[in-house]
């Protein structure tokens, strides 16, 4: 167990460090430095301003110094300064991240409920037609663009039926609809993996034994199959972090909500490289942390993972 935990934590740290290094190198590969790119949209800018700003942000230092200084900054929570506002990137992000986290978490809960509903109906229904319909839902959910579903619901609910305001006003629907839109999108991969692993479990002999002993279909499903199929679904859950983030940015734009989405859009349109860099680094860290948590919780759910060759990540089982 200790070995497994140490391995997982070491791997997570390695990935964060690598991600940081790759991003740093990618920024160096740009046609010019971030300051010049940022100021390129300005028509009248002289070399002195550029040099001055470069010095302020430390882009005139040798590469190795920049690399180490920025790497050191990571440990103190300093991920650079926004070129557009001069604010620390961490402050800029932490100021708005709350509403995005709320949206993402509620959407995630919705997605899990939706995915479970799909799986329960598909497994327990006796109607072949209903099963067929339900089984086709996840591929459909995966194909519906978040922004399109959001706009269609907005058109129906607020313009045609007038039950919801176009802008967030704190009413129930103005919170629930964005959550639902994002939840539908995220539920697709969770449902697909859960369906697949439920299928695998149902092909195992112990299910036949349970049936022979007279267990009912729902008893087998809830008491035995779901538990055994939960592992891979939990793993895919960690991987949906990225989908949740991208979906949040788009959902926030469609529903005019404030949050990380507005910051991301602003950072990209003003070509604010350090801000984008900080956003990427933070997201990657969240992704790695969530997946580390999933990996560490996995043995509690399925101790077999510790007995398998030891180096296999649970993620390998999910695919």
């Amino acid at each position, binding site marked *: 167990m200790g070995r497994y935990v140490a391995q997982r934590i070491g*791997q997570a740290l*390695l*990935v*964060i460090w*690598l*991600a940081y290094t*790759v*991003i740093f190198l*990618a*920024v160096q590969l*740009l*046609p010019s430095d971030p300051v010049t*790119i940022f100021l390129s949209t300005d028509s009248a800018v002289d070399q002195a301003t550029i040099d001055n700003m470069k010095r302020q942000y430390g882009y005139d230092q040798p590469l190795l110094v920049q690399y180490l200084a920025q790497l050191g900054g990571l440990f103190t929570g300093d991920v650079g300064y926004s070129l557009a506002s001069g604010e620390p990137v961490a402050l800029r992000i932490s100021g708005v991240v709350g509403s995005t986290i709320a949206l993402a978490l509620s959407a995630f809960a919705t997605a899990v409920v939706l995915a479970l509903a799909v799986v329960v109906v598909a497994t327990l229904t006796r109607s072949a037609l209903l099963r067929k319909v339900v089984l086709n839902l996840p*591929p*459909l959910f*995966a*194909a*519906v*663009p*978040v*922004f*399109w579903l959001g*706009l*269609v619901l*907005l*058109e129906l609910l607020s*313009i*045609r039926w007038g039950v919801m305001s176009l802008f967030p006003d704190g009413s129930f629907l103005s919170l629930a609809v964005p959550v639902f839109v994002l939840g539908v999108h995220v539920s697709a991969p969770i449902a697909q993996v859960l369906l697949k692993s439920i299928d695998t479990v149902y092909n195992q002999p112990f299910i036949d034994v349970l049936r022979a002993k007279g267990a009912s279909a729902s008893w087998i499903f809830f008491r035995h199959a779901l538990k055994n199929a939960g592992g891979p679904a939990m793993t895919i859950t960690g*991987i949906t*972090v*990225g*989908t949740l*983030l*991208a979906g949040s*940015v*788009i959902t926030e*734009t*469609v529903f005019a909500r404030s949050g990380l989405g507005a910051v*991301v*859009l602003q*950072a*990209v*349109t003003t*070509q*604010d*490289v350090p801000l*984008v*860099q900080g*956003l*990427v680094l933070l*997201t*990657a860290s969240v*992704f*790695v942390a969530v*997946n580390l948590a999933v990996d560490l919780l996995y043995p509690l759910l399925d101790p077999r993972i510790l007995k398998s060759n030891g180096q296999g990540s649970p993620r390998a089982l999910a*695919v």
Partner: protein
Amino acid sequence: MTLHLENPAAASSAQTTTAPAPARRRPSARTGLWLTALPLVLVLGWALFPGLFTTADPIAGVGAEKFLAPSAEHWFGTDHLGRDIYARVVHGTSQTLLTAGLAVLIGLIAGTVIGLVAATAGRVADAATMRLVDVLLAVPGFLISLIVVTAFEPGPISLGVGVGIASIASFARVVRSEVLRVRNLDFVEAAFLSGGTYRSVVLRHILPNATGPVLSLLAVDLGAAILAISGLGFLGFGAPPPTPEWGLLISEGRQYLGSAWWMTSLPGLIIVAAVVLLAAFGRQLLKIFRF
């Protein structure tokens, strides 16, 4: 030893249990493939010869025909400049498909090289490349696209490159696992024993036999790329406004949500249909290749 004992048993059991299956399953798999392929051919036709499918001009509008609801004459209605939306969807196909195609091509080529190296060039190379893939997986594809779009000007090419880089990881993983599977088959050993070099065996025997799942991923990934590109196009990071592009069409319609529902709803249905069909096509391919 155990391998040799297991093999005949597996082969014979496969024969007895699945012998009738090919006769029944083959035609249905083929029909499914054709059913999903035909509409996709239509979409490809839109991209290659848009003039055959619509005579309306996608860029210049007719001033007297603003905001017309869908009708026999304008299937998808008209927009704020009196342009036929169906014509804009048809003409926008090539823009969307080209960007998505560029993305998939980048993912396929880079992913295949990385996957091949990881699976055939020894343990150190495997560990190194797979950690790199982990990094690519740790940064959401959406953000990778955003970095590229920020660093270079927003536009279809940087969009395609960004989405392409984001899809390298999934191709690398599939190619690696397929090559690992094929590499352990007997005929590969035979090819090495009969004097094949690393290069010839990989190119002649391993790669061709590992293509099935990769082709399937290609179809699915094209759908995912279309989705990602239309999303980023919706945010305004793709082709500039006069060009018809699927995501941009919807984003233009957003301002007229109250007066012209068809400007957002109908182009979106085309995106949904294209992505669903590509995913289904990918699943059918996998069914046919996996005996």
